[in-house]
Every structure is written in structure tokens, then in C-alpha cells.
């Protein structure tokens, strides 16, 4: 894994246009697909799908067409301290999620509760992402203070 640095360079103008076109196409495709899954309320579902897809699609467009010109990889980025911080944060978050799963499973088993799997799985995804992010910030702060 290498670390990337932003530069002050800019990509050619038509690359930004291509990025926007790709983002628009992806957003429209996703919104139509989401809308098609809910034909009773097509426009509402499609709007929500578009809202959710727009930012990732723009990021993908920037990654494909723009970032090659504006971001450079550090020559020895994998030797940087950030990689150690990321590993520490990831390992800690993994253990946190494991503990939460064990405790939640015990509560559900003992209480004989039944819950939908989808919100639980989405919650675990959110927990792992937020946990890893917060741990990274904490590790970084501790190392640099």
C-alpha cells in the first residue's frame, strides 16, 4: 500500500468533462435501477437512488479521469507511519466488531429475540467504518502530540 500526495497540478479540462459524464451516466443508471425496483413510487425511489449514487459516481469519475494528473504516489509510501496507524486502527476495529457480534448474539439467544438481518448487517458495516476511522484519528493524535 502506498501513500498518495495531492499536487497543485491540474488535469486537462476535457478529463474533468469526462469525469462528470461518467458520473452522470452511473448516477442515472443506478437511479433507474432503484426506481425500477419500486414501480409504485418510481420517481421517489429513483431520486433516493440518485442521491446515494451521485457522490460515489463523482469519486469514481475523478479517480478514473482526474487523479492520475493531480495525485502522485510517494516513492516509499508503504514505509510511512500512516500504514502502521491504519493497521492498528483496522485491527482494533475488527476486535470491536467481533465483541459487538458476540454480545449481540448472546443477547439475541438468551432473550430469544428475532430481528431483521439487513439493519443488523448495515449497522455492523457502519460500526466498523466509524470505529476504524475514530481509532485512526486517536492513534494519529497520540503519535503526533
Amino acid at each position, binding site marked *: 500500500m502506498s*501513500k498518495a*500526495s495531492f499536487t497543485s497540478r491540474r488535469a486537462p479540462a476535457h478529463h474533468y468533462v469526462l469525469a462528470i459524464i461518467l458520473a452522470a451516466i452511473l448516477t442515472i443508471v443506478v437511479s433507474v435501477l432503484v426506481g425500477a425496483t419500486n414501480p409504485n413510487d418510481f420517481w421517489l425511489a429513483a431520486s433516493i437512488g440518485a442521491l446515494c449514487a451521485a457522490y460515489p459516481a463523482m469519486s469514481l469519475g475523478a479517480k478514473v479521469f482526474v487523479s492520475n494528473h493531480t495525485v502522485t504516489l*510517494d*516513492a*516509499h*509510501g508503504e*514505509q*510511512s*507511519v*500512516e500504514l*502502521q496507524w491504519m493497521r492498528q486502527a483496522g485491527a482494533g476495529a475488527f476486535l470491536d466488531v467481533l465483541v459487538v457480534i458476540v454480545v449481540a448474539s448472546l443477547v439475541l439467544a438468551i432473550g430469544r429475540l428475532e430481528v431483521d438481518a439487513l439493519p443488523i448487517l448495515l449497522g455492523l458495516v457502519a460500526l466498523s467504518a466509524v470505529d476504524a476511522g475514530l481509532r485512526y484519528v486517536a492513534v*494519529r493524535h497520540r*503519535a*503526533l502530540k
Partner: protein
Amino acid sequence: MKNNLAERRSGRSWTQADLAAAVGVSRQTIISIEREKFDPSLPLAFLIARTFDCAIEDIFTPE
């Protein structure tokens, strides 16, 4: 590991960013090494030593 990286860097009037750019790592990496909160990998230690035209043990010493 203890190190005298900060003194050697100051001796050349380099900023932490200058040294980071010279060895191809982030500035935070240099800060962490100078504060002895991060032990560099062997390749990075060699790279730093080569940058200062000296041996690794001239910069890094085990505690």
C-alpha cells in the same frame, strides 16, 4: 530505537518536509521517527542513512 535524526536534519538546515520528500515518505513519518514513536523499516533506515552519507548505526541506536 533512539536516533539523532533531528540533529542531523537541522545540521543541513532541512525541514521535516524536505527530508520526507528526499526519502519519499510522509512528513508525519519523519516527525514520528524523530520523536522515537515509530521505528522505521530496514529499507527506510538504509534510505535515511544513505541520504545523510553515513551508516545506519550512526543515526539509529538500540535502546
